[in-house]
C-alpha cells in the first residue's frame, strides 16, 4: 500500500466517519426532543395564562423593537405591539437613525412629544437624539427612542438602557406575535427555583402566504412559493426538534433574534449586545451563559415549542443568500469570540457539548460537506472510486435527510398541526424530498461564501427586502450596516 493510498483511505474514512457522526447526532436530537415536547404540552394544559396577564404580581416587561426605515408599516407594527395582552408592559421602539419618515409618522400617529428623559447609559451606545412619549394616555405604554444609526445590536442596547423593567423582550418590529406570546415567554422566568432563567426563546414560524389583518395572523397557510416553503420545513426541523432537544439537555446556545426574552440584569452585566458581530443574538446568549458559568451561578436558557412569532422568510435566492451568509459569519464570529470554552470542562455542558456541537455541526459541516463533494468528484473523475458506490453513498445521505425532515413533519402534525389540510401535508412532504437538492446545497454554498467574506473582513448585515404582510409594495427592512 503506497503512502498515497493510505492517505486516501484515511481521508475517505474521515468523511464517512463524519457523515455517520452527523447522522447519529441528528437521530439523537430527533428522538430526544420527543419527551420534552410531550412534557411541555401536558404541563401547558394546566396553565391559565390569563392569570399572568392580569396579575399585579406579574413581572414588568419591556419590549424592545429596533426599526430602521420601517416607515411603510411602522404605524401598524407598533399598533400590533401595543395590543399585546399583558398589563405590566412597556413598548420601546428604537428608531435607529432611519432615513425615511418613520419618526414623523410615529409622532403624528401616537401624539408623541420629546420628553426630558435621562438615559442611563449602562451599555455604551451611539448618541440618543431624543426619547418620545405620548400625550395620549391610551399610548402610555409606548416609548419611542430616536438615535443615531448604529445597527441592530446598538439599537437593542439603547432599548436596554431606556428600559425600566427587569425583563426585556427583544423582537423584530415587523414580526407578528401570537396574542399570548409574551405570557408564554415570561412564564419560565417565574417557574425557576434552583436555577436562574436568564433567557427564553420561542418558535419562530414563517408567515409567507398567511392571512394577516391589522397586524394579527388570522389564518395559517403553507407558503405558496417554493423557497419560503422549503424554509418552513427547515424551521420546523430546527425549532421543534433541534432547539427542543437542546433545551432538554440544558445546552441551548441560540435564541432567535426575531423574538427572545432576557433577564436584563444579566444582559447588562454582560455588556449587552455585541455590535461588532452580525450574529448578535447568538453571541449574547453565549456570553450570558459564559458569564453564569464563570460566576458559578446555576442558570437555564429556556425554550417554548409553541409557535409564538411569525416572520416573513426570504422568497428570493438573492436575499436568502445574504441571510445564510450572515448566519455563517455570525456563528463563526461567536465561536471565535468564545473559543476559550471549546472542550473546556470549566464551562460544563456548554464547553464540553454545546460549543463543540456548534463547531462540528454548524461551522465545520458545510466546509467538510463542500470539500468532501469536490474530493469525491475528483476521485470519480480520476477513476479512483467506484461511481456506483459513490452514488449509493449519496443516496443514503439523501434518504437520511428526507427521513429527518419527514420526522420533523410528523412531530409538527402530532403537536401543533398548523398545516391541517391533506394537500398542505403532501406539499410539505414533497418539500422534504426536494429540500436536500435545493435549499441544502444552496445553504452550504453560501456558508462557504460566508467563510470567505469573513476572511475578507466583510462585516455588513446586507439589506433585506421584504414584501410585508399587509402592504404589497416592497420596502427595505431594518438591516443596514453601520
Amino acid at each position, binding site marked *: 500500500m503506497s503512502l498515497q493510498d493510505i492517505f486516501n483511505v484515511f481521508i475517505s474514512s474521515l468523511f464517512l466517519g463524519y457523515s455517520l457522526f452527523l447522522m447519529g447526532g441528528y437521530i439523537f436530537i430527533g428522538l430526544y426532543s420527543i419527551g420534552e415536547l410531550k412534557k411541555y404540552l401536558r404541563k401547558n394544559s*394546566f396553565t391559565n395564562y390569563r392569570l399572568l396577564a392580569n*396579575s399585579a404580581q*406579574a413581572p414588568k416587561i419591556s419590549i424592545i423593537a429596533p426599526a430602521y426605515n420601517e416607515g411603510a408599516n411602522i404605524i401598524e407594527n407598533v399598533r400590533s405591539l401595543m395590543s399585546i395582552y399583558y398589563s405590566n408592559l412597556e413598548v420601546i421602539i428604537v428608531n435607529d437613525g432611519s432615513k425615511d419618515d418613520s419618526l414623523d409618522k410615529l409622532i403624528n400617529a401616537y401624539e408623541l412629544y420629546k420628553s426630558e428623559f435621562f438615559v442611563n447609559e449602562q451599555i455604551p451606545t451611539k448618541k440618543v437624539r431624543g426619547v418620545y412619549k405620548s400625550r395620549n394616555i391610551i399610548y402610555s405604554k409606548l416609548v419611542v427612542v430616536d438615535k443615531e444609526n448604529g445597527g441592530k445590536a446598538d439599537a437593542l442596547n439603547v432599548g436596554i438602557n431606556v428600559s425600566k423593567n427587569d425583563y426585556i423582550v427583544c423582537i423584530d418590529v415587523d414580526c407578528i406575535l401570537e396574542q399570548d406570546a409574551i405570557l408564554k415567554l415570561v412564564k419560565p422566568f*417565574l417557574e425557576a427555583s434552583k436555577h436562574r432563567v436568564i433567557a427564553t426563546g420561542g418558535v419562530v414560524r414563517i408567515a409567507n402566504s398567511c392571512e394577516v389583518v391589522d397586524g394579527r395572523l388570522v389564518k395559517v397557510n403553507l407558503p405558496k412559493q417554493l423557497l419560503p416553503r422549503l424554509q418552513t420545513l427547515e424551521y420546523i426541523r430546527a425549532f421543534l426538534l433541534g432547539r427542543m432537544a437542546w433545551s432538554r439537555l440544558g445546552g441551548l446556545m441560540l435564541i432567535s433574534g426575531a423574538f427572545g426574552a432576557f433577564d436584563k440584569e444579566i444582559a447588562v452585566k454582560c455588556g449587552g449586545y455585541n455590535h461588532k458581530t452580525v450574529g448578535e443574538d447568538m453571541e449574547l446568549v453565549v456570553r450570558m451563559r459564559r458569564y453564569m458559568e464563570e460566576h458559578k451561578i446555576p442558570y437555564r436558557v429556556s425554550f417554548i415549542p409553541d409557535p409564538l412569532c411569525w416572520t416573513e422568510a426570504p422568497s428570493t435566492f438573492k436575499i436568502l443568500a445574504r441571510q445564510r451568509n450572515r448566519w455563517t459569519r455570525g456563528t463563526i464570529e461567536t465561536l471565535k469570540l468564545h473559543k476559550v470554552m471549546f472542550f473546556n470542562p470549566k464551562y460544563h455542558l456548554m464547553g464540553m457539548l454545546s460549543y463543540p456541537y456548534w463547531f462540528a455541526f454548524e461551522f465545520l459541516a458545510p466546509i467538510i460537506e463542500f470539500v468532501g463533494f469536490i474530493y469525491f468528484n475528483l476521485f470519480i473523475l480520476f477513476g479512483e472510486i467506484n461511481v456506483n458506490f459513490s452514488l*449509493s453513498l449519496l*443516496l443514503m445521505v439523501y434518504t437520511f435527510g428526507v427521513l429527518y425532515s419527514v420526522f420533523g413533519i*410528523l412531530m409538527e*402534525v402530532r403537536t401543533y398541526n398548523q398545516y391541517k389540510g391533506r394537500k398542505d401535508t403532501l406539499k410539505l412532504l414533497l418539500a422534504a424530498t426536494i429540500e436536500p437538492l435545493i435549499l441544502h446545497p444552496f445553504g452550504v454554498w453560501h456558508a462557504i461564501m460566508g467563510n470567505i467574506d469573513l476572511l475578507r473582513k466583510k462585516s455588513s448585515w446586507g439589506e433585506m427586502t421584504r414584501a410585508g404582510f399587509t402592504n404589497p409594495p416592497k420596502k427595505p427592512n431594518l438591516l443596514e450596516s453601520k
Partner: protein
Amino acid sequence: MLHNFLEHYPNDFLPGFNLPILGAIFFAVLIFILVIYILIYQRLIRDTEAKYKRWDIIADNIIRDAIFFDSVSAEDMNSDHISFQESIRLNISDRLIRILKNKKFRIRLMKKILYTRHDVSGDAAENLTNLFRLLELDRDIDRMLQSKSWYLNAMAIQTVGVVDLKEFRDDVYRFIDNKRGLIRIESQNAMVKFDGFDGLRFLDTATYPITEWQQIKLFDKLSNLPNEHFTGVEIWLRSENDTVVIFALKLVRTYHRFELYDQVLECLKHKNEEVRKEAILALKVLPNPDTAPILTELYPKETEKNQILILDVMAYVSSEEDVPFLMNLLNEENNHVKMNAAKAIASLGSRGMDLLESHPNKGVEPLCQIIAQIKEESA
C-alpha cells in the same frame, strides 16, 4: 486501493449489497412508514375533531342546563318542587347516557366542566359541582388519583380544587409536598380553595420552593376571598424555606399587616438577597417613623441592586432628616443611584425640588437631565 476499501468493506456486511444501499433502503422504508402514518394520523385527527364537535354540543347542553337551573324559578313554575338532580336527569338524553360510558368523553366533559367552573360563581358554580357528581365523574377522579401517571394525578387534583369536590380533600392533601412541581402546585391550590387562608398552612412545612408562578396563582386564589385576619405569617417569616419567607413578605405587603413590622425588620438581616429585597419592599407599605433611619443605616451594607431599591422606598418614607444622606448620594458614580436619590429628595415636595436646584452640579450632566426628568414627571 480506495476503490477496494470502500467496496469490500460493506460487502463483508451482506453479500450482494453494500452498506450505503442497505442504509438507503432502510431509511426509505422508514420514510414510507412515517408518511403513511402521518396521512392516517391526520385523517384520524379530522375524524376525531368532527366527533368532538358532536360531543361538545351534548356536553355544552347539559352544562348550560346545570348553570341556568334556578331552583326558585323551578319552584314558582311548578306546584311540585323540582330538585336540581331531577331537572338534570330529565335532560339527560339516551345518547348522553350511551356516550358517558366512553372514557374519552368523560375526560372531555370533565375538562369542560372544569373550564366553565373557572368562570362562574354562586349557584351556577354549585350546580356544576352537583352535575359533576350526578354524572358520577367523581369515580374517575378516584381512579386518576390512584394512577401512577403524574399527568392524571395533577389533572384530578386540579379538578378536585376547581370543581370544589370536598370529599377528596384528604386524598389531595397527601400530594401537598409532592416531589413533582405540578402535582404539588395543584394540591396547594386546592387546599386554598377549600380552606381559604387556612389552606396556606401547608407553608408551615413546605420543603420545596414556592416558585413565583405558584405565588401568582396563590395570590389569584386569595384575591377571591374576603380579606380576613389570617394567621401563620409570623411563622412563615421565620421559615427555613426562603421562598416561603418571600411569599410571606408579599402577603404582608398585599394585606398591609402592620403588626408584623418587627418581623419584617428581622428579614432585613436575612442572608438571601431576594428575601431582603422583599422585606425592603414590604416596608414601603408599612408606615413607621423608624423605617427611614433603618434603611439609611442598612444602605451601605446592601448590594447595589438593593441599594437602588432602598432609595426607591425612601421616596415614600423619607423626611427632612434624611436630606443630608440623600444629597450625599447625588455625588455617587452610579447614575441609577443618583436618579433614585434625586427622586427621594423630590418626594419632599417644593422644598425637595429647591434642594435639587441648589445642588452645585445641577447644571452638569447627568444631574441636569435627571432634574429635568423629575420636574417633567411631577408637573
